[in-house]
């Protein structure tokens, strides 16, 4: 069965420190992975997608098919990065999008 796992419910780091939010997936087909972010009192919004291979707000994520992972990284955390982050998997054949349980990132000043 398709599944997205985010093992950390909460990640707290100091401003300026590196950040890595973990995401693992299980899917036998060709995956399309996303990271979504939800800032306080705002709607869920797309942060980045693996096929774009872009950096958004300093965040990057690389798809590792061998380890079935799509970890989100940023070299220097900023206070405005504090938010809920969700990893998501698209079942490409049917366009179904499955979400992980989310990680709350808290950046300490």
């Amino acid at each position, binding site marked *: 069965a398709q599944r*997205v796992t985010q093992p950390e419910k909460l990640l707290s780091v100091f401003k300026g420190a590196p950040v890595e939010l973990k995401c693992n997936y299980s899917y036998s087909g060709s995956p399309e992975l996303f990271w*979504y972010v939800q800032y306080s009192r705002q*709607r869920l919004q797309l942060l980045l997608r693996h096929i774009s291979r872009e950096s958004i707000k300093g965040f990057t994520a690389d798809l590792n098919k061998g380890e079935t992972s799509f970890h989100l990284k940023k070299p220097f955390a900023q206070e405005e990065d504090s938010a809920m982050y*969700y990893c998501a998997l698209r079942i490409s054949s*049917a*366009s179904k*999008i499955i*979400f992980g*349980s989310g990680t709350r990132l808290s950046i300490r000043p």
Partner: protein
Amino acid sequence: EAGVAQSPRYKIIEKRQSVAFWCNPISGHATLYWYQQILGQGPKLLIQFQNNGVVDDSQLPKDRFSAERLKGVDSTLKIQPAKLEDSAVYLCASSLKSSGAFFGQGTRLTVV
């Protein structure tokens, strides 16, 4: 462009009552999703439409939940009768076939 619109933003009802949520997707987006997000959990897909046809409703509790997307644009999600465990945020999202999903603000439902 305008985003996904949902109404109402908040709703409080008693158990066994009925409730309906409305969603207007981004213009031109053929795919529409309804998700349920219980506090502390990630969004769980309830139903997915492609135009006005249902693609996936495997996790929709069909004895009490129903959804429709007439004319392939707006959609409504209904719960009848509501249970306490239905308390959650109901999210509507839309997408083009090749894009990520764009979400509305959600409707926070409290069943008392």
